[in-house]
């Protein structure tokens, strides 16, 4: 039960973005992904979630243990809190949404349409969705965009509870969430734009050909 990444290359539009990444995430751990705009954090998270194939390297983890969340939460504003949660529970084959509602302090809002929730409440519902997936590894992409300080604290608390319960989280963010976490800066793994890597034969061959012509 550990997420291990070895020598991973992730690509966007066929061009490698991060090269030679390696880290591990064990239950109980929180890793903050840091890096400037466009450094490839989103790309990395999507690759780990299985939404796009890695260009090279290895990702090893037990099957179906990853819950991914971009800042869009996949909530339908016309459905109530319960309906939203129940749907994702059904999709993941779990049944119990009560625990998640209570954990995220949403029990009193259960029959509100998601449209009528405030931003902070929506975020909590998004986290509740992660809980009902029953999956231990959370991958969160800029989860606090345009949340105020109070909502950020609430969010940090919720992640803390998940981790304390044996889960783990990998969080890409620009701001300080004020929680105890390992920081993983993707900066050093930035692909050198001038040395193409990976198996995208197209560019590698070209560079070789043109460099050959010069030398």
């Amino acid at each position, binding site marked *: 039960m550990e997420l291990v990444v070895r020598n991973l290359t992730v690509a966007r539009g066929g061009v490698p973005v991060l090269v030679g990444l390696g880290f591990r995430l064990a239950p109980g751990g929180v890793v903050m992904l840091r890096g400037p705009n466009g450094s490839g954090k989103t790309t990395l998270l999507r690759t780990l*979630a*299985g*939404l*796009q*194939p890695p260009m090279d390297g290895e990702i090893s983890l037990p099957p*179906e243990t*990853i*819950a*991914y*969340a*971009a*800042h*869009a*939460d*996949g*909530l*339908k504003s*016309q*459905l109530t809190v319960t*309906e939203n949660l*129940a*749907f*994702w529970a*059904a*999709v*993941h*084959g779990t049944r119990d949404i009560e625990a998640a509602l209570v954990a995220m302090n949403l029990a009193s809002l259960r029959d509100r349409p998601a449209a009528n929730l405030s931003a902070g409440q929506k975020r909590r519902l998004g986290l509740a*969705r992660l809980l009902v*997936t029953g999956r231990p590894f959370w991958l969160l992409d800029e989860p606090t965009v345009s949340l105020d300080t109070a909502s950020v604290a609430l969010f940090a608390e919720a992640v803390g509870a998940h981790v304390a319960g044996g889960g783990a989280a990998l969080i890409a963010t620009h701001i300080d969430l004020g929680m105890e976490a390992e920081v993983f800066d993707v900066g050093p793994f930035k692909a050198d734009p001038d040395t193409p890597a990976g198996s995208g034969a197209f560019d590698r061959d070209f560079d070789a050909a043109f460099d050959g012509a010069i030398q």
Partner: protein
Amino acid sequence: MIALLVRDLRLTFRAGGGFGLGLAFFLIVTVLVPFGVGPQSDLLARIAPGILWVGALLACLLSLDRIFQLDFEDGSLDLLATAPLPLEGVVTMKALAHWVTTGLPLTLAAPLFGGLMSLPQAGYFWVFVTLLIGTPALSMIGTFGAALTVGLKRGGLLLSLLVLPLYIPTLLFGAETARRGIMGMDYAQTLAILAGVSAGSIAILPFAAAAAIRINLR
């Protein structure tokens, strides 16, 4: 899987879900055509089955971009793709939901609207039957087209352009069967092919559509 179907139906029936808009568009096309071609009822009667089919097809077409676009925008599609459901199943359920909310109402309404077009007596039955058999193919082909264009900013008209040529066989056999049925000619063969087109689309296109979605999410 059933949960997905139930959710999609629920969303469509809730306020703002857009149920009935397809139907309204169908109504408007059938209303516009008499305005365009003039009110002679013999002429209208001759073109009625064809226009009803074309109208149903256009109404179907215009509701296609809803199939995946909303789910794509709010991130649900990403989450569904990482969920333990086969994407082929997701796609099929989406097509089914589209049919229940668009194809089926159109089929039920067509005989009704036929009155506006002076549809002959026998026509009510034949338009109904051919639409009932043909609209599932329209939904499935449309779902494939929607899967191709999901994520494109203004995919709407491009979607129409891609899907319409694919609709032609269904339209041809559907309208031809209805016409033959009305005129008492032999319809067995075209009807069988229409059913075949529907069955074939439903059997094959979920795989193509699922592949297209995987590519688009990448």
